[in-house]
């Protein structure tokens, strides 16, 4: 007979421990009230849900969205992007000028500025920062591309900065580079490895106060910020791995702001108490990239693209066969703006106007005519053929992206209508990226976020920027190459007269549209929500209908004000109820565990 006392004793101990734990759990109900008063002090802490990666808070090396967004708040740039329309506005510099060629840029600095540690901020700090990036490889990792055209940077006096470029450029070179304090950074041994994740010294509206990996990032307001100290004390990013949990968190009042919602999530939250929503016109485009014959910068072709797509008429036929308005309505539930080319309409000045003669709409007859002209004749099954070859195209999508899957569903029958057999190839995002690098596709769903100056995005549509099949050599939006486009790119790159430059940019975009290297579908809205019972005064960019998070600037949160205290109270009452769950769980365990323990005692007298 086997009675294993040891085993049972151990189980008993486990149960006793559990019972104790559950008891502590049930006590959760009691101090919940105390916490509510603590929460009231948080009325000036703006809590934002995030799932962003953080590698470090080193502005020289960090790539990821959350840290780079934080840098916009932590470090003022020489030239900022305005809230109104994201065009250049004063930052550390109040005014700037360039020589007739666009090679020497001179900046006048704002007088009497201070870093957050009260040390003076001068043009010497700017020169030091830029020079570090130019001289040290390990400090050029994140933003090296922005100083590549810099020949030298000098600070002849405390209030003047002179940037001399290697080649002329019309795009203001003082944008987008976080300026750090020389007196802090020059003392760091290995600045490339410096994490900068404890109290930071900067010049922006908020400074890093603390960072707990995967838990929170806390920024504190900077009293020395030249536009004046923000009205909230702190911004606190809180980590939520999944976006549905973020939606629940704003409903329950655990966070004050969320962004990046799907249309379904957005609709679900629209009626929620004390939650206000924002449909922000975003700075992103989404579209269909077409393999018009990928090749590297030396024109060595690679990849498996369908020969048919080398014909401009076939590509144009595909565009004419897509009912983009219906697609936007059905797939995006209308949370997106109509698009022309790859510069979003929030950059009103640069975007290709909708009334440009190249812009065309949905037209099945035109699509069929174009395919006829290209020599593709309808076969017995309705699919077009040429030289015995059927017109079959592969459409590569990310299987996890609802937008892409839904788009593919609409596209398949539409393409069939004009005589193209479309094969949807849904895959994971890594496979999609690998296949597109190798040119192993006919069409794929693509998208980019665009910065206020169009130069970079135009640049990656030039022949020289095409990478090879390993992805080396450059970055290309669609593998596009056109001598005419390149010429327009070069012209706008050095054109200092803004009016003329705008015209050149429009011409380049029209050329790209006409060549149909890709079909821009829409500029998706950025869907956001905030707690209207706690905060007010979020500044959008552009101010008229723009976005709050992920701006190119620090406007979104620096203007925020807490709603008066009595309005803010009243939440947190539910927290006490959390204890009830604890009590219920405790009860189950205590009853169960207790029963086991009692039975143990009872049996001790009838042991053999």
């Amino acid at each position, binding site marked *: 007979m086997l009675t*294993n006392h040891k085993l049972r004793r151990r189980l008993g101990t486990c149960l006793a421990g559990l019972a104790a734990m559950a008891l502590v759990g049930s006590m959760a109900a009691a*101090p919940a009230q105390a916490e509510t008063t603590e929460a009231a002090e948080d009325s000036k802490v703006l809590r934002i849900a995030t799932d962003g990666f953080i590698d470090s808070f080193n502005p020289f090396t960090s*790539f990821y969205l959350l840290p780079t967004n934080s840098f916009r708040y932590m470090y003022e740039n020489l030239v900022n992007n305005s809230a109104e329309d994201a065009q250049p506005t004063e930052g550390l510099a109040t005014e700037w000028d360039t020589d007739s060629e666009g090679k020497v840029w001179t900046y006048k600095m704002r007088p009497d500025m201070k870093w957050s540690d009260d040390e003076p901020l001068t043009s010497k700090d700017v020169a030091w920062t830029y020079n570090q990036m130019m001289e040290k490889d390990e400090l050029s990792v994140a933003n090296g591309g922005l100083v590549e055209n810099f020949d030298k940077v000098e600070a002849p006096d405390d209030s003047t900065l002179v940037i001399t470029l290697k080649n002329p450029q019309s795009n203001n070179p003082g944008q987008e580079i976080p300026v750090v304090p020389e007196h802090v950074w020059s003392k760091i041994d290995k600045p490339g490895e410096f994490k900068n994740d404890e109290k930071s010294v900067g010049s922006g509206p908020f400074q890093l106060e603390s960072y707990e*990996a*995967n838990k929170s990032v806390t920024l504190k307001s900077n009293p020395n910020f030249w536009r004046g100290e923000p009205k909230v004390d702190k911004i606190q990013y809180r980590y939520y791995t999944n976006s*549905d*949990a973020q939606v629940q968190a704003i409903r329950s009042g655990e966070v004050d702001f969320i962004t990046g919602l799907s249309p379904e999530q957005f609709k679900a939250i629209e009626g929620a108490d004390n939650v206000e929503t924002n449909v922000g016109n975003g700075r992103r485009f989404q579209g269909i990239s077409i393999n018009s014959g990928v090749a590297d910068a030396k024109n060595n072709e690679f990849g498996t693209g369908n020969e048919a797509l080398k014909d401009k008429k076939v590509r144009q036929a595909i565009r004419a066969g897509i009912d983009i308005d219906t697609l936007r309505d059905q797939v995006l539930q209308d949370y997106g703006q109509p698009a022309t080319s790859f510069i979003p309409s929030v950059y009103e000045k640069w975007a290709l106007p909708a009334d440009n003669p190249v812009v065309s709409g949905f037209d099945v007859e035109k699509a069929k005519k174009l395919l006829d002209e290209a020599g593709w004749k309808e076969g017995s099954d309705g699919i077009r053929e040429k030289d015995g070859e059927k017109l079959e195209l592969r459409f590569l999508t990310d299987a996890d992206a609802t937008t892409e899957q839904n788009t593919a569903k609409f596209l398949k029958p539409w393409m069939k209508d004009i005589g193209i057999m479309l094969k949807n190839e849904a895959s994971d995002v890594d496979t999609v990226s*690998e296949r597109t690098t190798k040119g192993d596709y006919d069409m794929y769903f693509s998208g980019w976020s665009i910065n206020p100056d169009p130069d970079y995005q135009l640049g990656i549509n030039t022949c020289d920027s095409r990478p090879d099949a390993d992805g080396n050599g450059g970055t290309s939006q669609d593998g596009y190459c056109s001598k005419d486009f390149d010429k327009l790119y070069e012209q706008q790159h050095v054109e200092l007269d803004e009016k003329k430059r705008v015209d050149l940019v429009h011409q380049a975009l029209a050329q790209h549209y006409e060549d149909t290297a890709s079909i821009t579908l829409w500029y998706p809205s950025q869907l956001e929500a905030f707690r209207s019972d706690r905060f007010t005064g979020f500044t959008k960019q552009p101010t008229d209908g723009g976005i709050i998070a992920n701006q190119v600037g620090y406007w979104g949160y620096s203007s925020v004000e807490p709603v008066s205290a009595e309005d803010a109270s009243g939440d947190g009452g539910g927290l006490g109820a959390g204890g009830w769950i604890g009590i219920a769980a405790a009860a189950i365990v205590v009853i169960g565990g207790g029963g086991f323990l009692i039975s143990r005692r009872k*049996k001790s007298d009838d042991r053999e």
Partner: protein
Amino acid sequence: MTTPTHDLPTPAGGPDPGGSDGQTGRDMDEPPKGGSFLGYLLRKLGGALTSMVLVIVLGFFAFRMLPGDPVLKIAKERPMSPAQIAELRSQYGLDKPVIVQFWDYLVGIFSGDFGESYVYRKPVSALIVEYLGPTLLLTATAAVIAITLGLWLGQLSAWRRNSLFDKIASSTSLVFWSVPTFWLGLILLMIFGGTLQWLPTGGMITPGLNPWSFAGIIDVIKHLILPVITMVAVVYAQFLMVMRASLIEEMSEDYLTTARAKGLTEDEVRKNHAVPNALLPTVTVVFMHIGGLIAGAVTVEAVFSWPGLGKLTFEAISGPDLPLLQGTFVVFSAIIIVMNLAADIVYRFLDPRVRRA
């Protein structure tokens, strides 16, 4: 995401879900034949070591077969020059030949160095140590509750086989067991987090609270409740089923008739005679599944933003952060292998019928 915890074990032996050594026969009627305990131990140790070697090799090559170039992925949509990309490649050691990378990895592992994470720019071993604590807290709490609940309900179910209680207890547990963890977690999150607002919707502690203060501990417990309930609901069925099956098997044994003949009550027979014996195969299964539970934390941690190893792995996959993936893969596998080994040893200790053979 697949959770190994979903391999419902065949009661009283059956295929070893962890699959540490391919030795599957643990049937009560057929104890392993012959051999001293030392021989048995060496055999098991050998199996575990082989598995570990395979895991280490696989840990390197499997993730390198993943599509996508980590550097290009980071460079995507950023104004990066070819020189910058090359610099990143060399920082990550990706410019070296694969065989050299493999050698560095092997040498590293044997000195406890899993390399440096691409994303966090920190030693992987330090990251794993940092994130292990929350995972252990979550899985240990869930394991203790699931095991207790499963065993307790399991023995009651078996004793009242085919009663209404048995039917309800067994079928409820199976329903939870077949529900996707992610879905169940989200439903609980919506009801208790969003709608009722009783419990926090994510994380381990409210930022700013000291975890070692009284308020901090209470706060952590509140954050624990939903993820623990999710994990328990999904896994307790396997303990219930094993306990039930093995007790049912015991119930046909002659010694119970003897015990009854001595005039013991049914309750006494159950608690003093049948249950202790039925616990033996169950304990083995419990051990085997502790490893699986830790791996299963990946899903729960992702739903509830629990800052543990599972979430770390989840993020490493999206990178892809190769050194971090390798590190977490090796650690997860090692835990499962060690737990299986422990199960084998414990089993041998506990069951005299195996020892006697």
